[in-house]
């Protein structure tokens, strides 16, 4: 077992263990921190796969953006030091059963399936290659989805402001 493999298993273990803790802990702030570690573990897996750009995007957007947003919303909506109420045993049991059955089904399919990759020459996921294809307008270009996503982000931005706006009481 080489050092690279050990690092991979370590990253996978960090990701999965913190994900389990994030969905089971009863302290909501700790859940957010465990989610942070899980996302960092996934970024580490991207680094391990040599997808540095995606790893950087993962850290900037998820760790720097979404988790901070979640922590802010916890501060705004939760009393400090308060634990989440205990869940019903039956619900926990049936949720675990459903999740386990789904996982078993997927694993069964995975074990029976033989994957074959293409034999073509590999394209390096460098920032230059990503940039040319992202803004390209030829057959393989992603310029149109890029613009659509930018419109979607603008719409989400305006929508957030409108939804979270405090409505003033109407003057009679």
């Amino acid at each position, binding site marked *: 077992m080489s050092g690279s493999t050990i690092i991979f298993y370590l990253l996978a273990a960090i990701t999965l263990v913190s994900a389990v803790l994030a*969905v089971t802990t009863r302290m909501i702030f700790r859940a957010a921190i465990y989610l942070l570690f*899980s996302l960092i573990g*996934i970024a580490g897996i991207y680094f391990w796969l040599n*997808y540095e750009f995606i790893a950087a995007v993962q850290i900037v957007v998820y760790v720097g953006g979404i988790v901070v947003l979640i922590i802010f919303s916890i501060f*705004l*909506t*939760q009393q400090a030091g308060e634990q989440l109420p205990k869940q019903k045993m039956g619900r926990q049991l049936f949720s675990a059963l459903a999740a386990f059955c789904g996982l078993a089904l997927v*694993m069964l399919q995975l074990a029976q399936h033989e994957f074959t990759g293409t034999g073509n020459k*590999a394209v390096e996921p460098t920032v230059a290659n990503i940039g040319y294809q992202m803004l390209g307008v030829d057959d393989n270009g992603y310029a149109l989805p890029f613009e659509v996503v930018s419109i979607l982000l603008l719409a989400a931005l305006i929508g957030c402001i409108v*939804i979270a706006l405090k409505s003033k009481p109407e003057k009679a």
Partner: protein
Amino acid sequence: MIEPGLIYHMLFISATLFFIGVYGFFTRRNLVTMLMSVELILNSVNLNFIAFNKYLWYDKLDGLFFTIFIIAIAAAEAAVAIAIIINLYRSHQSIDVEKAEEMKF
């Protein structure tokens, strides 16, 4: 040096992460923690796309672009969800889904 056997490991991690997220979504009753579970599910999908791009279709970058767009949409989704959560907290003084059931039936 691309080992195709490792794709099974990646898909195992991705599937496990997905069902951890599903379990959290079923058991949690607090909107913020449910949002965290959704983030886990979206991340597992990203990992899946990257694994397929790395080990099976390494001659294209399509999986990588799907991942970038999913991350962008996840950011928009989280922002809108948190705006809704804060608005719900203002009107109900709680973000428990059991307490916001006016439109249930």
